[in-house]
């Protein structure tokens, strides 16, 4: 694969900030400012250094605009932009591109939302087909899981184990949104929402904010904390949804896996910690298999073995992920990986974590991305 997708010492994260997740009294901009100030302090970065501002505004209308945010905090950057499929990993990756090419030196990636009337509702509230009642982005993992069960004999206990594992992780995270105890029996006792999925399989909207300061490795090394390097990225878009082979099973992930591991010269087994954008429990299964953490059709046994648990061979979402930690469309995962790789994750620290990977699917299974981070 050569250097395609490799950052080769050209981009790093210098600072991160995040708010508590859940219900707040203030709006997304105010939350974003809190996270932004925390990230500047965390990284030892002065506001005057920032020459790029990237934000996100979801297709459901939540999020913040980049110009409005820049105006609010008094920055006149060279570049602003907001992604409409705004998962955090995409935004931080674009920031790394800007820094790696020298267009910008310090890019603030900022996201906040507090849709107070919609806390606890399903995210992805849109219509795929209004004729057949094919609604909400959660339908995609649901159809994917039906196909998976038929093909490999997957069981609902697998999804339940994932939901319970993430909840256990969230209970070690003081900023998590959902910290009540959850057992497999509790999971199985809840009704179906979009069969074969239950509400506990699907991330629900929380309020909160994240800021990530992306800069050159050189600048990050002069920061307050140890730099977290961008090692490699992989991307795939699948706009031709129904025409894409393996669309519901998220098979395009394997293209991303080839890119990101090829560029990094690493493989799944080299990862110390894994952040999966778990808009649903199904995303965890699909990521584990398509990236090669386990074999095709083997995720059930892999998960049941405890491999993804906090003390397992590849801990997944030690902060509780989006299912229990908080649903900020991928943004929190970037912060958690930085804290894990710096060794700052306190009670939820994965011991000896030096290399971490983020994997996501966005929208209606149209956007795939992975980033590998390494502590400097």
């Amino acid at each position, binding site marked *: 694969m050569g250097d395609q997708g490799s950052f080769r010492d050209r981009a790093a994260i210098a600072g991160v900030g995040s708010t508590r997740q859940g219900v707040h009294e203030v709006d997304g901009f105010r939350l974003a400012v809190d996270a932004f100030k925390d990230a500047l302090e965390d990284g030892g970065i002065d506001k005057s250094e920032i020459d790029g501002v990237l934000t996100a505004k979801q297709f459901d209308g939540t999020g913040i605009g980049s110009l409005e945010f820049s105006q609010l905090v008094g920055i006149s950057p060279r570049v602003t932009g907001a992604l409409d499929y705004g998962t955090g990993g995409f935004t931080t990756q674009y920031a790394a591109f800007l820094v790696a090419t020298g267009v910008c030196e310090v890019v603030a990636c900022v996201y906040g939302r507090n849709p107070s009337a919609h806390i606890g509702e*399903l995210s992805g*509230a849109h*219509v*795929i*087909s*209004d*004729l*057949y*009642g*094919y*609604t*909400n982005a*959660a*339908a995609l993992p*649901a*159809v*994917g899981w*039906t*196909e998976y*069960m*038929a*093909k490999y004999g997957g069981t609902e206990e697998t999804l339940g184990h994932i939901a319970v594992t993430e909840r256990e992780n969230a209970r070690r995270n003081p900023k998590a949104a959902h910290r009540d105890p959850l057992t497999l029996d509790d999971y199985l006792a809840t*009704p*179906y*929402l*979009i*069969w*074969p*999925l239950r509400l506990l399989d699907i991330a629900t909207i929380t309020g909160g904010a994240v800021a990530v300061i992306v800069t050159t490795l050189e600048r990050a090394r002069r920061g307050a904390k140890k730099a977290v390097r961008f090692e490699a990225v992989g991307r795939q878009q699948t706009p*031709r949804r*129904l*025409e894409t082979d393996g669309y*519901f099973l998220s098979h395009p992930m394997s293209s991303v896996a080839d890119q990101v591991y090829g560029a990094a010269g690493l493989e799944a087994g080299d990862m110390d910690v894994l952040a999966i954008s778990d808009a649903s429990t199904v995303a965890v299964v699909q990521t584990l298999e398509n990236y090669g953490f386990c074999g095709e059709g083997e995720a059930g046994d892999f998960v049941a073995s405890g491999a993804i648990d906090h003390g397992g061979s590849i801990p997944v979402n030690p902060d509780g992920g989006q299912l229990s930690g908080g649903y900020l469309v991928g943004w929190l995962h970037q912060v958690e990986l930085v804290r894990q790789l710096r060794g700052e994750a306190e009670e939820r620290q994965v011991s000896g974590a030096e290399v971490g990977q983020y994997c996501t699917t966005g929208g209606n299974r149209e956007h795939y991305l992975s980033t590998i981070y390494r502590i400097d």
Partner: protein
Amino acid sequence: MSAIEKHVDDVSEPYWTGLKEGELRIQRCASCGYLRHPISWLCPECLHEDSEWIAMSGRGTVETFVWYFEFIGAAVGELAGYQKELPYNVAAIRLEEGPRLISTVRDVAFGDLSVGAAVHAVFDDVGDGWSLLRFVEN
């Protein structure tokens, strides 16, 4: 306005006319022969615009499906379309001729539908002169 009406335009009109006449018609590119679904004015394979509308056999296989146990979303009536009772299913059907489309399987209870089920198209009068494509098990 019926839920169907806003889907009808110059490009898609032959599809809806086909349903009224009891035929599932899919665009075939006049240049490269690609079966164009979803409906489009442009062939995504060869970028040619012209197409012919070809009658499909109506036979297909259920590739995957879900059952909605709630009407999800605020504007229930609008979003659920012609699904009036819970639970309802939404299914991905692979047509014998190749294209995959989203529809629903009629006359089947929760628990009785399975991946791989052989189905065929039915054309249900849904009022205002429109017909909706659904499938039933063979």
